[in-house]
């Protein structure tokens, strides 16, 4: 274990100095890697550790983004504070979804449909709110300052994105080692067995969905202030939910490093192929490739790429555990 931490530390130090050598375009790709790694990690808490599949996490990103914006607009509150309030709002919505889903015993596909329903209702409501620009979407005129979470150039976003990822890694690692995390894994593996041993299944599922929704929505503030444009049709769509879940599935669900590995593999591929195919006149081809990837991963590597990386690194990490 110690060697793994050492390896991660080296990786972290390399990431720290990268902005000095990389172009702004490449930094942009790294920012997207961090963004999706963070989102995947947040989703991983619910689906990877608890086994409850959600296909509606875009809802929480949307709530975080719009709440943060609304608080800045009406109260002049800095996004650095507003994002936590947005997080609590998203967490509460998560609890509502969880209450309906877990109290009424919706499992598997039923819960998936419940999350999709809430996300779609949310998307349609936000799409019709005049204050958020309705169908045109919302353009934000940036005023660059630290307090506004708005910066010129990619470097500050790079470090903030990296911060998000570190924050999520530490939280999930702590969660994994805590009693709550162990209960979550127990009920994922066998709900009835866990319940018969006295684990309050409902309670721990609710805790998982709250944490997951809360953390997901924090990324909304980042999204708003990085792109300066909000539209429910992109950020709250089911397609975006699929983007969120793709990386942790490919990397390895229910592991701390899986979503990060998945994002480092998929995001550059996605960004590069998107621009390459769009230039070649095949817009959407990268999504076809995505689709086949999703099929292939579930069919051939259902436990994710991380198992293979672990095996490959076993020599380096020997004597660790």
């Amino acid at each position, binding site marked *: 274990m110690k060697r793994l931490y050492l390896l991660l530390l080296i990786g972290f130090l390399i990431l720290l100095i990268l902005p000095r050598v990389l172009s702004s375009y490449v930094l942009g790709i790294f920012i997207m890697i961090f963004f999706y790694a963070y989102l995947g990690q947040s989703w991983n808490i619910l689906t990877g550790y608890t086994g409850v599949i959600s296909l509606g996490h875009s809802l929480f990103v949307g709530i975080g983004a719009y709440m943060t914006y609304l608080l800045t607009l009406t109260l002049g509150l800095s996004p650095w504070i507003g994002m936590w309030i947005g997080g609590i709002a998203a967490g509460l919505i998560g609890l509502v979804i969880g209450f309906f889903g877990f109290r009424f015993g919706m499992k598997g596909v039923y819960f998936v449909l419940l999350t*999709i329903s809430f996300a*779609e209702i949310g998307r349609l409501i936000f799409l019709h709110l005049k204050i958020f620009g309705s169908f045109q979407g919302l353009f934000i005129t940036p005023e660059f300052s630290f307090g506004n979470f708005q910066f010129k150039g990619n470097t500050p976003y790079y470090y903030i994105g990296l911060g998000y990822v570190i924050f999520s890694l530490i939280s999930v690692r702590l969660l994994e080692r805590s009693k709550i995390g162990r209960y979550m894994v127990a009920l994922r593996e066998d709900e009835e067995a866990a319940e018969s041993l006295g684990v309050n299944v409902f309670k721990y599922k609710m805790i998982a969905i709250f944490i997951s929704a809360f953390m997901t929505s924090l990324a909304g503030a980042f999204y708003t202030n990085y792109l300066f444009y909000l539209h429910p049709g992109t950020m709250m769509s089911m397609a975006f939910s699929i983007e969120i879940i793709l990386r942790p599935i490919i990397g390895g669900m229910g592991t701390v490093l899986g979503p990060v590995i998945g994002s480092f593999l998929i995001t550059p591929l996605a960004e590069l192929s998107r621009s390459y195919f769009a230039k070649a006149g095949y817009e959407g081809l990268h999504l076809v490739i995505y689709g086949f990837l*999703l099929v292939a991963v579930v069919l051939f590597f259902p436990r994710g790429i991380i198992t293979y990386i672990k095996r490959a690194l076993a020599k380096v990490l020997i004597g660790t555990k």
Partner: protein
Amino acid sequence: MNLNLLLQLAVSGFLLGGVYSLIALGLSLIFGVMRVINFAHGEMMVWGMYVAYTFLLWTGVDPFFSFLVSAFVLFILGYFLQRTIVNRILDFPEAMQVLPLVGMAMVFENSARIIWGPDYISPQSRFALSSLSIGNLIIDTPRFLAFALAIIITFAVLLFLKKTDMGKSIRAAADNRLGAFLVGTNVNQVYAICFGIGTACVGTAGGLLVPIMPLSPHIGAPFTLISFIIVILGGMGSLTGAMVGGFVIGVAESIGPELITNIFHGIGLDLDFPQTMKQVVSFFILIVIMILRPQGLLGGKKG
């Protein structure tokens, strides 16, 4: 409240509901037999629409006849999709079955975009502008024709399942996979044909919808969701349930926005519920039905 308008909306929703029934029948058939939910259902319907449209371009045959071509192409697609992918995931945990089909939905949606382009197209049927009137009600002919054909095809599929040998094998495999296997049914073949029939249903529905609504590669997802809602409302795997659910959702989506706007105004709220939010009505119905009656209106067993 304008009763005549509501009635007009209800009739138009009811007619569309007939097509919804056919879409949901395909989904329900696949689920009833294989216990797999086809998350690419709406996207495959869009393929059915484009096939009918392409056939129209090449031969000039009206979409109201070329739906047979859509059915055939979608049958082949469904058959091979089952053989290559779906058959491998049958024994996966329910949750893991969702993801490959979501992946296939992305493949269908975006390959349609590459092949046929991203823009909206609305090809004209020769019946496009005509309409029938019964008293105060005006019914446009394409919608009525789509409804009538959808109902006929739905009954044909039900009859096929009841009367023919293949239909009986499908029902046998649905009831008891092992038992059907033991008496010599080629279960894999039956499953693939059944999946093909399910996607042929949705392909047909796509062909019938071509004269009614503009098509684009990205309209599939709402139809996937609508067909889930209908199937859960009617009862998972219940074929008559799919029909009833189709009509309920067709009418609810059509009159819902107008009705809710009236209620809002009635209680003094200055709020409109625009037609573009009609899906909210369906999702609301889905949430309520999953809470109160998860086995669906006509479903027998619980859960």
